[in-house]
């Protein structure tokens, strides 16, 4: 009989302890953010979708070697290039040389798993992660990014 009542007493005591803890939490500062009105700044290393990096002239740094395309596990990068002849001065002589210029750089973000192997494989530092995370849409096409266009829009 004594054990019965002592258990009830200890049980009520444990409930009161719990209520005390939750009561204390009322006076703690708020830790959440009212999201659409306030947003959190993403950390420097946050991995959004990839983005092309520009050189001093505002052109993409990319030399269209295709390493990122090969490194990608899910094949979400597709790029195209054309060769352009240009003239350089080598030892006082004008010579024509060929180089590849990027004409298309598409990212299919629907299959990207943000592993970062494209950025890691790039020897020219031509791609980086964006900080964008407010991506929501009901249409699949909204996640097929034309990165070359995005770069142009950023510059204009």
């Amino acid at each position, binding site marked *: 009989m004594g054990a019965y009542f002592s258990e009830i007493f200890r049980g009520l005591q444990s409930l009161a302890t719990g209520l005390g803890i939750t009561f204390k939490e009322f006076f703690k500062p708020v830790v959440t953010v009212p999201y659409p009105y306030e947003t959190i700044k993403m950390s420097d*290393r946050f991995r959004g979708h990839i983005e092309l990096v520009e050189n001093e002239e505002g052109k993409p740094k990319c030399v269209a070697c295709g390493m990122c395309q090969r490194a990608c596990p899910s094949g979400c990068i597709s790029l195209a290039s054309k060769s352009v002849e240009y003239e350089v001065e080598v030892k006082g002589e004008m010579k024509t040389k060929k180089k590849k210029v990027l004409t298309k750089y598409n990212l299919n973000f629907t299959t990207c*798993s943000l592993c*970062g*192997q494209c950025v890691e494989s790039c020897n020219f530092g031509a791609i980086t992660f964006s900080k964008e995370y407010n991506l929501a849409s009901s249409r699949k096409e909204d996640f097929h990014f034309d990165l070359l266009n995005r770069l142009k829009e950023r510059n204009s």
Partner: protein
Amino acid sequence: MSGPIHIQPGETFTLNVGPQHPATHGVLRVKMEMDGEYIVKAETVLGYIHRMHELMGENRTYPQVLPNLSRLDYLGALGYTHGHVLAVERAAGIEVPERAEYIRAITVELNRVASHLFWFGAFVMDLGGFTPLMYAIEDREYILDMLEAVTGSRLTYCYYRFGGLYNDIDDEFIDRARAFIPRMRKSLKKYDALVTGNIIFRKRLEGIGPISAEMCRKYGATGPVARGAGINFDVRKNEPYSVYPEFDFDVPVYDECDSLARYKVRMDEMEQSLRIIEQGLDKLPDGPIMPKKKPKLIKPPAGDYYQAVETARGSFGIRIVSDGTKNAYRFKLRSPTYSNMSLFDEACEGMMIMDALAMMGSLDLVIPEIDR
């Protein structure tokens, strides 16, 4: 419309829990044959989110499989990627710098705390208490922010590379991790007073949901489930890997075999993880995070390689059979939750349904990892 169904005495009926059910924490289906509120027979049905990760491991080159491993278990992803990189490093004979191994151990332990915290919240919510989940998520958020600043993602990390890491940790991370340890210790005391002592919580778990050591051995259960049944097995101690032999930590073991024992094991494990993080931050050596010599194309010599690691849920094993090409010939994942879940069928026979669901919560099931 017919009237209410009257069940005759002695008649059983089939009850489907899931595939969409809050108690199963994912798309797991349990077919239960019920006699009133008592379970006569239960059968777990799997395969609703099978994604063929093992086959993908055989079709892709070794580095291309890296992001797959973190999709197995979204709560403790770093432990699984750790197992994968260790297995491939063993196969290809890649040396790992000491600093990288220390950072791996620190981040894995942080992830383990985050995983256990979420389990703690979800488990108490299964039993009907909503508030502890909010407190647990607040602490977990702190870890996720910390890991996001280093790894770049919040849940599905792809941070480890063969031979090292994607990028180094900075002073900010070390300061935050140091500040986190006393904060978490304070929180653990709070959880202890709020939940462990609670009379309703204890009445629902004490002596209920027995999983004996024998049953654990029969089904190959590992991790907190086995340690709650008195089996002192932890891969970090029994088959040491990485830099774990250099840390001083205990393996919590309880002999009660009930749901409360499994709860206690996980709560104690968080404290031990904090100890490992503390020591790791103190001992953290300087140096590179990637080896100087690293093969450009990973082609392990032909052979059979196995590596087991202790993840938040138990022993995770990865077997790679290489035929000397850039793809694995066989890529086998032994996931702990699969074994832990298999014993549910036998263990819940004759239990009341609410007790069985409480026991299911104490197994810490993460379904994508069962259906990998």
